């Protein structure tokens, strides 16, 4: 067998298109899909020395193997149409897939058979002697096979054709493998009909030999890079129609497959073990079914968006190593059990139908960074197979700052239902699109817009992520400030308790103060109230005070509002001083008014937010200082040193270590 007219250096280049190993191996799965297979079984040897892919597709005749499989540019789409017999859109097109594994193994053993009949047409000029049939068939066949499976039909005449009977114009000698046409007949046409249903062939492609050939090697030496043997077989023995084994996997492939998962906690697929990475890659680049998780919340719409039923896939792709079988399914981040909840406002539907390009899918944004990192980006599937790695079609190079960071929180999946034909728009190996393709330009415009500004669906997803982030950070700021104020009150409360338990002068003064019922106010009581109002909005959403929420806050993205549970203790202004409860009242006094005053009768502590010291510090520092000074003054009213000591001790007290 030969690869007619192909320079070995071109073969070397073509084989290099497929990298790394899983991307090359996926070609075998794609071939099985194009052969209308439902199930594919991949079996690794325990030591990863070889791997076999078996499928239940329509199989190959020895002639299919010679003419289509092992031929550069022999893609079946060109003469069999765009669809398989069962109506699947074919994945393969360029006819170089058989070279995919050339760099990764020494040999490729192909075993197959098909329920088909092959016809070989031979035009025989007048006066031709005995014809060697095996030479015309192109594959070696034993006399037994020739006897059993090959039947010639000979027609005579160049214009009016007349079918001859055997023995009357020609002699068919299957054991000798030849047809002899009577010289009186003149020019004739011989059709060799080969019934392949009982034929099984085993072919071996010697990649080692193929790649070793130097650029200047004689092309004729390529003839024997493949061997083929055809035998009769009983179909009942055969479970799989085609069985392809990559034998003697190269040491670097075996090393990669054997590599262990990185130690410690790992989040990204690239840190997984080699075999796990292989399974992951296979799940992304082969036409397999989606892994369906629990249908909850917004993610339940995802399958509607993907139009999944219209995209045929393999029913089952199973990979076995060391007796452990794993089903390969295509994972979607939104449906993974560990993924966070997907909110409706973060789910963006993609539906493109323009100039023959039809694509559907979704983009999903998340509040947190997506792990594993391999899920980030939009994965585009053409004919069920992902093209390259997920990405943002160049948006990542345009965006900057927070918008760029938001991309790490976006995932997506798009199925191209029509257009973006594999031959015209996809680079060999299906790793990327030709950017000149009109369909690709349309797809890009819909997804990321045009020019130097990012638009389209990615822009909407980025905006949704950023908006959530703004709401979250605004809310966290509000709650943080409330928490800090509450913490000041708790610290003062704990400081008083601590002082009381010391049993010293300060302790006695505090106890004495707490027994008091006096009300010595110096004008602050008449000052107007200072209203601690909430900021009207966070991240563009109005804040609404509500009681008895399950959590401290709740963002209602549907109603576009942020709810805050103001009945919680964080919002309360009560202050427990040993065993007496006080309320902190906010006043807008004059700068020269006292910073704070204690009304023991009403159990109120009035804080002057208009005090001259306030502009010098933030809310909680000012509050702590005001309360400390007011209490120290009240407790140490007869002893300035004691008052100062108390003020310092109250100010410096911290309730917890992380304060």
């Amino acid at each position, binding site marked *: 067998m030969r690869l007619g007219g192909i320079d070995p250096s071109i073969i070397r280049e073509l084989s290099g298109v497929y990298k790394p190993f899983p991307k090359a191996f996926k070609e075998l799965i794609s071939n099985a899909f194009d052969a209308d297979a439902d199930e594919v079984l991949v079996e690794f040897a325990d030591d990863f020395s070889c791997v076999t892919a078996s499928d239940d597709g329509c199989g190959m005749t020895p002639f299919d193997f010679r003419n289509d499989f092992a031929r550069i540019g022999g893609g079946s789409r060109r003469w069999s149409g765009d669809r398989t017999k069962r109506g699947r859109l074919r994945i393969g097109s360029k006819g170089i897939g058989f070279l995919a594994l050339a760099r990764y193994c020494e040999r490729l053993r192909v075993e197959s058979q098909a329920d088909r009949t092959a016809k070989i047409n031979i035009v025989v000029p007048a006066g031709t002697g005995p014809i060697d049939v095996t030479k015309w068939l192109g594959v070696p066949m034993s006399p037994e096979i020739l006897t059993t499976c090959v039947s010639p039909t000979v027609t005579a005449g160049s214009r009016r054709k007349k079918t001859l009977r055997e023995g009357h114009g020609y002699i068919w000698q299957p054991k000798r493998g030849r047809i002899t046409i009577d010289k009186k007949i003149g020019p004739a046409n011989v059709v060799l009909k080969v019934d392949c249903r009982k034929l099984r062939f085993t072919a071996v492609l010697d990649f080692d030999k193929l790649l070793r050939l130097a650029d200047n090697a004689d092309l004729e030496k390529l003839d024997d890079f493949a061997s083929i043997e055809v035998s009769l077989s009983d179909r009942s023995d055969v479970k799989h129609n085609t069985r392809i084994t990559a034998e003697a996997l190269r040491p670097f492939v075996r090393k990669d497959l054997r590599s262990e998962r990185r130690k410690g906690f790992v989040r990204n697929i690239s840190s997984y073990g080699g075999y796990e990475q292989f399974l992951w890659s296979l799940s992304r680049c082969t036409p397999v079914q989606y892994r369906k998780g629990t249908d909850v919340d917004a993610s339940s719409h995802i399958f509607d968006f993907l139009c999944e039923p219209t995209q045929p896939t393999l029913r089952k792709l199973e990979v076995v190593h060391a007796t452990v079988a794993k089903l390969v399914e295509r994972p979607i981040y939104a449906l993974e059990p560990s993924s966070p909840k997907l909110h409706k406002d973060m789910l963006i539907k993609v539906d493109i139908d323009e100039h023959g390009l039809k694509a559907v899918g979704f983009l999903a944004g998340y509040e947190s960074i997506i792990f594993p990192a391999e899920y980030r980006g939009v994965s585009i599937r053409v004919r069920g197979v992902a093209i390259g790695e997920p990405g943002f079609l160049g948006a990542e190079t345009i965006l900057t700052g927070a918008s760029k960071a938001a991309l790490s929180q976006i995932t997506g999946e798009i199925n191209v239902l029509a257009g973006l034909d594999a031959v015209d728009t996809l680079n060999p190996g299906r790793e990327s699109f030709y950017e000149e393709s009109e369909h690709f330009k349309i797809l890009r415009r819909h997804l990321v817009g045009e020019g130097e500004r990012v638009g389209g669906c990615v822009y909407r997803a980025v905006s949704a992520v950023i908006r959530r982030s703004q709401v979250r950070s605004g809310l966290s700021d509000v709650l943080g400030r409330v928490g800090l104020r509450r913490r000041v009150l*708790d610290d003062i409360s704990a400081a008083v308790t601590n002082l009381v338990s010391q*049993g010293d002068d300060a302790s006695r003064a505090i106890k004495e103060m707490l027994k008091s019922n006096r009300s010595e106010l110096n004008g602050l009581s008449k000052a107007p109230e200072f209203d601690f109002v909430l900021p009207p909005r966070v991240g563009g959403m109005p804040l609404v005070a509500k009681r008895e929420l399950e959590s401290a806050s709740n963002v209602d993205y549907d109603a576009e509002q942020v709810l805050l549970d103001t009945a919680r203790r964080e919002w309360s202004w009560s202050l427990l001083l040993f065993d007496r409860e006080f309320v902190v009242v906010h006043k807008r006094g004059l700068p020269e008014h006292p910073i704070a005053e204690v009304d023991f009768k009403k159990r109120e502590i009035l804080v002057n937010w208009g005090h001259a010291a306030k502009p010098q510090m933030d809310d909680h520092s000012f509050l702590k200082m005001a309360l400390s000074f007011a209490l120290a003054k009240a407790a140490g009213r007869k002893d300035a040193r004691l008052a100062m000591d108390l003020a310092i001790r109250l100010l410096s007290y911290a309730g917890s270590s992380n304060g």
Partner: protein
Amino acid sequence: MAKLVTGQTLLSKHVSRRDHVLLVNPPVEETRYSWLRWNQPLDLLRIAAALRDKVRCQVSLLDCMKPDKAGDVQIEWLPRDRRYATVGGERYPMRRYGEPHDALAKRLEKKTFGDKRPTQVWITSLCSYWHQSVAEMCRVAKQSLPDAQIVLVGSYARFMPKHASESCAADFVVSKFPSLEKASLLDLYGREMPPFVAVDLDPEMMVADVTAAVERGVVDVAFFVDDLCADGGQPLAECVARTEHLHKHLRYHAICGLKPADITPAIAKTLGNKKFAEVHLEEADAADSSLDTDAYAAAMRYLADAGLPTGSDRLSGFVWIGRPGDELEDLIRRCLDVLQACGSLILKPFTPTPGGPEHRAHAAYLDSIPHRYWSPHFFPFAELNKIGRDEYHDLYRLAAFLNEKVRNRSFDMLDGTLGAQMLRDSLRREVWKLEPSALRVVDQPADL
């Protein structure tokens, strides 16, 4: 100010069936807590049983000192303003052991203890000088559960009721609690049991406690009793005989109350049982206040006959330090004697019981010291004894070194080398959390 009541009055008049009593073992603020793993509120567990049995009210437990799933008790530095306590010129780092108060406040505010919020919060304390944490616990409880009554029980309430009633925002201080003859209510711990069960010497209660503990997967039993040899060791023997078959991995820990002078051959036989994982002998004083070496010799003879010889990994002897009247030379001699007798030495810092004989004898001296500094780790009698706290710390190093000399043979293959010395020093520092000291025992005593 809190009302002083007895346990009897409290149970009969102030708790009803409608109440939900939350029992709290608060966190501890200390400079060092070597026996952290043995903190279990045995009194609360007994009270819980009594409340459920007699009052029939709902009872919950909040044990801040319970180790987590990994067996660790949370430890954190105190905030910066209280990170160091300065006592007698010595700076002590201060840590909080157990769940911090602010975390407790959050737990109390949530419906952690069922739908019915606690109506009473009973707070205990193992030692009276940990009273600041008790006061803070009262504040947290009062703030988080404003309608609940706060009750103080335990050592602080018992020994210093007046101080407690003035210093804590409690409603009741229980100065005296009737002895409760009820088995501990271990089911209050739920699924997450502590790693051991504390028991006393009443055989009926002990058997019930150990049975309940074993059913919950706990196999370590620690005796919390002052006198383990009471009644000639008969209760101890009965306790062991009736429980040792309950689990093949059951282990007893005699961590206190074992006086050498009281050890008889019968008691030694009980202690010789291999299920005793730890046997610590209290320090024995003779009539003239010197170390009762005869008592040690007799006890060790009986223990050796029972299969617990000197040098056994299970055996060690306590030596008090920080008692009034300490002399450094005498302490070192005692260390060497106990080490020779038992093979291993544990220093036990002393603190007086409020109202106890040492307190009464040195009332004026002790009352001038803030009670929180009565912690034995601060050596409250240091000034009285005219022994510096740094010298007491050196004794710790000496004890570690002596133990190392006698017991540790880990680095024998490097014997005599600088490497071995450095390894031992490093280990000792790690064990005792101490900085290296210039003090070294230069000559090995002839009899070691």
